[in-house]
């Protein structure tokens, strides 16, 4: 039937020619599209090819077990454990900074702020995402590091107040709520007041003690894991906020309206309905944001201190660290002249670790986002 219709418009010969050209063009388009596939394959192939000689020569053990990183020593040592640890540490720091902030901001953008304000906040996120990483690194090195070094203690104290006070008050509120649940009706109010007052006093007292302790902290070098973690956290924010907001939006109006209709408040709707529905998308957002922090080069190269050591104790964010990306960037300059040496190939081995991490993380987040799309699509 289709064929008949086509015959009404044009002759068979023309149609065949047209179909052929269309097919050729389509093939050509596919070929150009396949460039991404080719690029990914080439990247894997070439990084692996240049990483392989290192593993053949030195084996797998040294790279992941030893912390002695002396690629230019005699004999050279290629223990990258401290470097991998450094990458992990600053990533952990970035997660601590970016995840709560990012998710809270995403919630604000999707459900809380009025439309007009949302439209003004979005460019802020875009600008944060657009600022080149070297500008972040420069800020970290030239402005933030001296500030940390000279006024680090008081900054930490201030930060502890800003973070702990609202959260502490919320906690106190929850505790009084739970503790007074089974008290007689007419006693509830005074009991709550007293309990809240006592707990607030304790909170303030302990915060004072904490901030006094933090003010006394001397930071010997401003280029350390803390500095980098904060900056990386800010850099990861835009990704987390925009992906998480998208998936919160994707949960849809119907879900929210259903929950409101049952008498839930906005917070209850968010926590009991929207976030469970959008949860996997939020996890994907976190993964993508974290990968931005893991793969970031310039900030860590400029401001992490570049010391290949595991801090003691391991969570000491005030000590300098060194990361995978910074090692590749910093060591290649010297290794470049000796192409073919293990010094050159070890950097490809490190790059392979990075690449594999990013692949796995990407595939997981891709899978999560797609599954969520399907599920929410089915809901509607």
């Amino acid at each position, binding site marked *: 039937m289709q064929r008949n219709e086509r015959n009404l418009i044009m002759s068979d010969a023309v149609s065949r020619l047209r179909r052929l050209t269309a097919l050729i063009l389509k093939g050509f388009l596919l070929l150009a599209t396949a460039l*991404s596939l080719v690029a990914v394959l080439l990247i894997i192939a*070439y990084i692996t090819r240049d990483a392989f000689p290192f593993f053949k020569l030195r084996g797998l053990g040294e790279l992941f077990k030893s912390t002695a990183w002396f690629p230019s020593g005699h004999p050279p040592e290629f223990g990258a454990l401290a470097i991998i640890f450094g990458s992990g540490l600053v990533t952990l720091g970035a997660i601590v900074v970016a995840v709560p902030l990012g998710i809270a901001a995403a919630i604000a953008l999707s459900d809380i702020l009025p439309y007009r304000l949302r439209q003004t906040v979005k460019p802020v996120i875009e600008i944060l995402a657009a600022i080149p990483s070297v500008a972040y690194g420069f800020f970290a090195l030239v402005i933030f590091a001296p500030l940390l070094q000279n006024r680090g203690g008081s900054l930490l104290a201030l930060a502890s107040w800003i973070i702990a006070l609202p959260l502490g008050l919320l906690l106190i509120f929850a505790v009084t709520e739970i503790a007074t649940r089974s008290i007689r009706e007419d006693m509830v109010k005074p009991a709550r007041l007293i309990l809240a007052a006592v707990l607030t006093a304790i909170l303030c007292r302990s915060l004072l003690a904490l901030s006094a302790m933090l003010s006394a902290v001397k930071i010997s070098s401003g280029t350390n894991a803390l500095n980098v973690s904060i900056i990386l956290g800010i850099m990861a924010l835009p990704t987390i906020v925009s992906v998480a907001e998208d998936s919160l939006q994707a949960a849809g109006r119907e879900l929210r309206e259903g929950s409101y209709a049952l008498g839930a408040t906005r917070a209850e709707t968010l926590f009991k309905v929207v976030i469970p529905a959008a949860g996997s998308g939020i996890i994907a957002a976190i993964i993508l944001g974290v990968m931005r922090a893991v793969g970031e080069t310039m900030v860590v190269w400029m401001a992490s201190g570049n010391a290949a050591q595991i801090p003691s104790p391991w969570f000491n964010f005030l000590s300098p660290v060194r990361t995978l990306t910074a090692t590749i*960037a910093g060591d290649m300059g010297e290794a470049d002249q000796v192409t073919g040496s293990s010094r050159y190939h070890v950097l490809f081995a490190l790059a392979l670790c990075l690449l594999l991490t990013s692949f796995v993380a990407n595939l997981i987040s891709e899978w999560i986002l797609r599954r969520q799309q399907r599920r929410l699509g089915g809901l509607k």
Partner: protein
Amino acid sequence: MNLGSRKLFDRSLTGISVMAVFLMALSLLVLLGPIFSRGLGAFIFRATSEHRRMILEQFGRGDEEDVAAEMQAVARARRPLYGMLKKFEDELKNMEYGKRLGYRAQLKEVKNLLHDLLGPLPGEPETVMLRQEYGQTRWDRAQAKLGQILFSEQWDYSDKSSMGKKMLLPRRQFFAGTQLEPLFPYLKNNLVQMLRPHLVFYWRFLTDTSLDSHLFGGIWPEVLGTFYLTLGAILLAIPFGIIAAIYLSEFASAGRLVSMLRVCISTLAGVPSIVFGLFGLAFFINTLHLSSSKSVLAGSATLALLILPTIIRSAEEALKAVPHTYKEAALSLGASQMRMVLTVLLPAALPGILTGIIISMGRAAGETAPIIFTAAVSVGQPLKIWETLSQPTPALPWNIYNLATEHQAVDEIRHVQFGMVLTLVLLVLLLNLAAILIRARISKKMRG
């Protein structure tokens, strides 16, 4: 929970999330504030007579007679100072040996500093390096130097429990009772006459080439290098990006191949930028031999791969946003699918595609890691367009790193570093602003 506490809980969630947004905006302000305020210092500053002399002699700008007259006036103000130096040197000759030795070392330091501040002292041999031909060209740097002359820095290690403490000792005390003592107050009181600072707007900072590794001049080689790299990357990425987007949005049927292609695009977007750099080195330079070593071409190719996913995604979104009625109208008029795409779909989606391109331009301009091994050098001259095929270039992002960490006089050229960061950030922000404006126009048009 009773109603009151439920409400309170709701409000505290609102408070916390609004605070998060506020903190985000605040961090943007804290980041951009110093970059803008100190970056402007590279363009607008109080220039000394040395600056005008340098501009005249090195760039051939300015009025020769004016500068000569000014140099004479400046020399008049400096004459007593040099006189004091001379007198002290004579005095030194008649001193006993031990005393003389102590003074001589200090005198040498003072003379070096004076040289840095005012330019060559009378009777000094011809200099080789450009930096020794001129004194401080900026008044803020001149004042910092003045501080170094008036006070010598000493470190006090008497307290063993902590790190050394910095102490500032007035040099005048050291030279008390000698002919050199009046030099310090004279210098302090007459520095304005010796250097004659005037506020200038040095917009040529963008277009002047750099002299003596950025101690003088502007950032033209970096600006041009960034321009080449960005242009090259975008030119290489646009055709592939748009074709891929057309294929994915119009021709691809949902199948295994297409979903694999999509996975590849998002994987490519997630590859760390430093890995792109290594790949560029291993593939474009060491395997394909696009150039014998680093070159703008190799760097552009690497950057093109980096921005490809962004272009594909945004172009695909723009193509998908074109109303179905457009396509159907074109097809019903007998246009082939290809013709419909070229004459209807692409023009309608063009603004959206353009936004994606502009945003990826900003990304390409600001990326550092991919060009470290493929295109960037620290020092270089502005390239001619054909040299980009084989020559490496300085570029803004790389030189920001390089000047901030590896330059021999990091502290003396802070203004250049901030100027570069400001230029780069402004470039990226303007590109993004353009994208935002285009997008606003599109959404207005779509709404009708």
